[in-house]
């Protein structure tokens, strides 16, 4: 299940929903990305997340499908927020369920690496000294590259 939404999410509720009534799930790994109060500049007061409706959901779907092709997974929940967020707010949730932990850990890591480099989202940060669009990070591409080399 993939959602792009403005509203906050409840990671605990999402994990519970994914595993409810299932006894074949032996591992549940979750990742929550949050707004930091420092990034390219200190004193980040908030950020605005923009997406490309339609393409963003499709891109997230492809990333999850690829994870499901690489690992044996029992379920994935991916929620990404858009709109205005302030430091401490959760931005993104990935929950991966599988029979064994290794697949769940790796698939969760993979989904975040691909999301950061392939899903059409853009962050604009608001700081005490002005607003600016966040630049892409070389390290994110290196992180995503790791999964290319393994196959």
């Amino acid at each position, binding site marked *: 299940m993939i959602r792009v939404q403005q509203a906050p999410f409840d990671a605990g509720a999402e994990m519970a929903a994914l595993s409810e009534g299932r006894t074949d799930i032996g591992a549940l790994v979750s990742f929550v*990305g949050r707004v930091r109060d420092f990034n*390219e500049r200190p004193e980040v007061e908030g950020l*605005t*997340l*923009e*997406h*490309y409706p*339609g*393409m963003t959901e*499709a891109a997230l779907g492809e990333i999850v499908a690829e994870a499901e092709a690489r690992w044996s997974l029992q379920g994935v929940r991916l929620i*990404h927020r858009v709109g205005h967020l302030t430091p401490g707010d959760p*931005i*993104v949730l990935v929950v991966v369920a599988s029979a064994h932990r290794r697949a769940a850990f790796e698939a969760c890591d993979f989904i*975040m690496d691909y*999301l*950061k*480099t*392939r*899903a*059409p*989202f*853009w*962050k*604009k940060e608001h700081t*005490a*000294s*002005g*607003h*600016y*669009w*966040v*630049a*892409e*990070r070389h390290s*994110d591409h290196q992180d995503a590259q790791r999964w290319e080399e393994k196959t």
Partner: protein
Amino acid sequence: MSLTHLNARGEAHMVDVADKRETRREAVASGRVIMRPETLALLAEGGLPKGDVLATARIAGIQAAKRTHELIPLCHALPLSKVVIDFQLDEATSCVEVSALCRLNGRTGVEMEALTAVSVACLTLYDMCKAVDKAMQIEAVRLESKSGGKSGDYRRGVTPPTPIVTGSGEPGVVALGEAAQGSLLRVKCLAELRERLNVSELEIPLEALPSADVAGLKAALEARDAGFALLKEARILCAINQVMGGDQTPLTEGDEVAFFPPVTGG
């Protein structure tokens, strides 16, 4: 860009500055009073009936800066640390150039104080000279520069360097001629690109493209507006009908082409 003096319902309100940090704020404003050469000569030699024109106008400007909050409804009362009013007599253009500098360490800017000081100094010049010249004109009252505060530094005529500093990102639309009949392409500019180009969405006839592909679209857009040249930057990405593409991707009638910078989600 939003107006900070209006609240969510569009009503005027005073901005709460209690939580803003104190920074050194400075603003310089200028203006001029154009007068007949004879008036300027009288002013220069102190021959005007009301006495020392410039000294009076200087005091008036300083007083006005201190009382700006009484005149401009939503301005805060500010403990200015410095106000300097300066006059230059220009015989070539037969005018008095007035400038005002205001400074303080505080939580809100001093542009309004500098502009008020210039305005009132100009008015006082008029009052002091009107007995001999009623045709004087007050002109070009404007902010020359400001520094400090959240919105950053400003200098007239100087555009800020990168990184791109913008307001809250209202989408803008640039009309590109008449909407042609028939085969249109829909073009979207997203995120930072939308703000740099001030274009959110536009339509362009397929016939305007030198070649029916993305490279052709970029050329056609650039021919309409030189600003679109930045679509050729290597970092700018492109999706055709929401699928990533490149310069060689062919385009047909009704296609949606989106241009955007590298993604930064997560």
